[in-house]
């Protein structure tokens, strides 16, 4: 095995991040926070509101810059790399199903755009008909019947359908890391289960490294290879392998409640 396999895929080093600096509502969220993600891991991140879960994802994706510290991807520093450039390496599915697709374009047009990621968007035909069969075969994997509706504008789809499509879109081209930002939270229970099932399948089939923020403790326990609980900008639980397998919802809730009592909630 090559030695690089032991190096983390992503590293956050000594991150500090405060919100509303120099105002009364200033909050130091991260103080010297370090975190790393290894190749092939599927991490579930849980924690109360304001614990820093989403900020962690935003720092990874480059949606917000850290005040200090550094972010590395495959040992290359990307701290100052803008979000749209990082997107070539990092795919993201948002909580809001509206964010991962373009509503006025058809399913086919959305997939064609996603398929072209990383290449120049020139004046060639937007939809490559030769790839139609491939797109349909990808849509079939979702088991939502979307393969028969490729000419439909995405805006006409339900939230669950859009989120499944967003998942497909964000993993269409090879990526280093898949970021799932409470991506089942806005869906009804059925769609939520389906999207979660599809996520697990896509991650396995494509051998992706993924980090998922969720409020659903069952998903966090059932899926993934590592579980992280965050509180006030720190990790209070970080379990992988056998330790993760023995981790039950009750254990998570216990720690969760202890923290809440500490905070006087």
């Amino acid at each position, binding site marked *: 095995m090559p030695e690089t396999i032991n190096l983390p895929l992503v590293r956050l080093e000594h991150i500090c991040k405060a919100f509303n600096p120099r105002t009364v509502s200033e909050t130091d969220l991260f103080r010297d926070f370090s975190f790393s993600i290894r190749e092939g891991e599927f991490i579930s991140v849980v924690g109360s509101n304001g614990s820093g879960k989403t900020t962690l994802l935003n720092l990874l994706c480059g949606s917000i810059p850290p005040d200090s510290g550094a972010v590395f991807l495959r040992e290359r520093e990307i701290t100052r790399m*803008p*979000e*749209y*450039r990082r*997107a*070539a390496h990092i*795919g*993201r599915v*948002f909580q809001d199903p*509206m*964010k*991962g*697709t*373009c*509503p*006025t*374009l058809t399913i086919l*047009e959305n997939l*064609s*755009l*996603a398929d*072209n*990621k*990383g290449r120049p*968007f*020139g*004046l*060639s*035909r*937007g*939809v490559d008909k030769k790839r139609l069969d491939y797109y349909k075969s990808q849509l079939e994997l979702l088991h939502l019947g979307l393969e028969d509706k490729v000419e439909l504008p995405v805006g006409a789809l339900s939230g669950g359908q859009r989120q499944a499509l967003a998942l497909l*879109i*964000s993993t269409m081209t090879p990526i280093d890391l898949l970021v799932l930002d409470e991506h089942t939270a806005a869906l009804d229970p059925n769609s939520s289960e389906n999207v979660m099932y599809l996520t697990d399948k896509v991650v396995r089939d494509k051998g992706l490294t993924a980090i998922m923020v969720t409020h659903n403790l069952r998903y966090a326990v059932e899926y993934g290879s590592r579980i992280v609980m965050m509180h006030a900008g720190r990790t209070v639980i970080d379990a992988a392998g056998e330790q993760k397998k023995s981790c039950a919802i009750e254990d998570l809730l216990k720690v969760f409640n202890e923290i809440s009592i500490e905070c006087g909630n």
Partner: protein
Amino acid sequence: MTIFLGQAETVLREGFIYSLMAMGVFITYKILDFPDLSVDGTFPLGACVTAALINGGINPWLALLLSFLAGSLAGSLTGVLHVRLRITDLLSGILVMTAMWSVNLIITGKSAILQFFNRPTIFTWGVIRLLPDGLYRHRYVVVTFLLALAVKLLLDWFLRTKQGLLLRSAGDNSQYVISLGKDPGTVKILGLALGNGCTALAGSVLAQVGENADVNSGKGMVVMALAAVIMGTSLFRRISFLRSTTMAVLGAVLYKACLQVALQLGLPPHYLKLLMALLLTAALLSQRLSGKKGEKSLA
């Protein structure tokens, strides 16, 4: 009857000319959701550039093309002000519109109206001479129609290319453009360049009809173009086979017809801008009542 036909010809000619601008504003307003006021400055820019070039002995078709480029440049400036310097969309447009006032006067050599009578124009020079007499008499309508058609077809084609799809996504969901690894700001700048290029093209054609460029010809252009686009897209959107660009062209013709009818009914010309403002207000209101735009701004 002949009077009526003459009127209809004027409406069509003017409608086709302003439809070039309406299609440009369709890109900025409808696709990018950007209320672009620089149009008031880039319309006369097209006219002034054309007049200066034709007076300098440049081929009128080439002058048309260069006007488009000048408009695109001004439009991308609006984009840079908004995207890179983070000035609000409205203010970016106002800044460019104001700056264009001086630029246009510099181009015309400080005169408010720059004439180029009896110089070759797209209506008197080149292939147009080959038209049979019957058509040559109606050459203004013929040429403006062909120009509107050409720009419409080009835009239809562009909006289906990869870059075109990206432009359409930038207006709907800029986060999606980021996910695709592209800077939505750059896409916006390109859209504004395209929109103002089309606007300057309209200014160039209008100048070549009258064989003069008027520095003041841009007043109220935003209001006119917006009303044309909104009228076109809300009146004709039920006709499913019509493309949005066609709706913009039809809107512009319809809008010009409204103004012409009002003038025929005895409206004094100095009331025209008041009527234009009323028409846009009505168009905006009817749009909100039909709920279409409201949905989009919520999304």
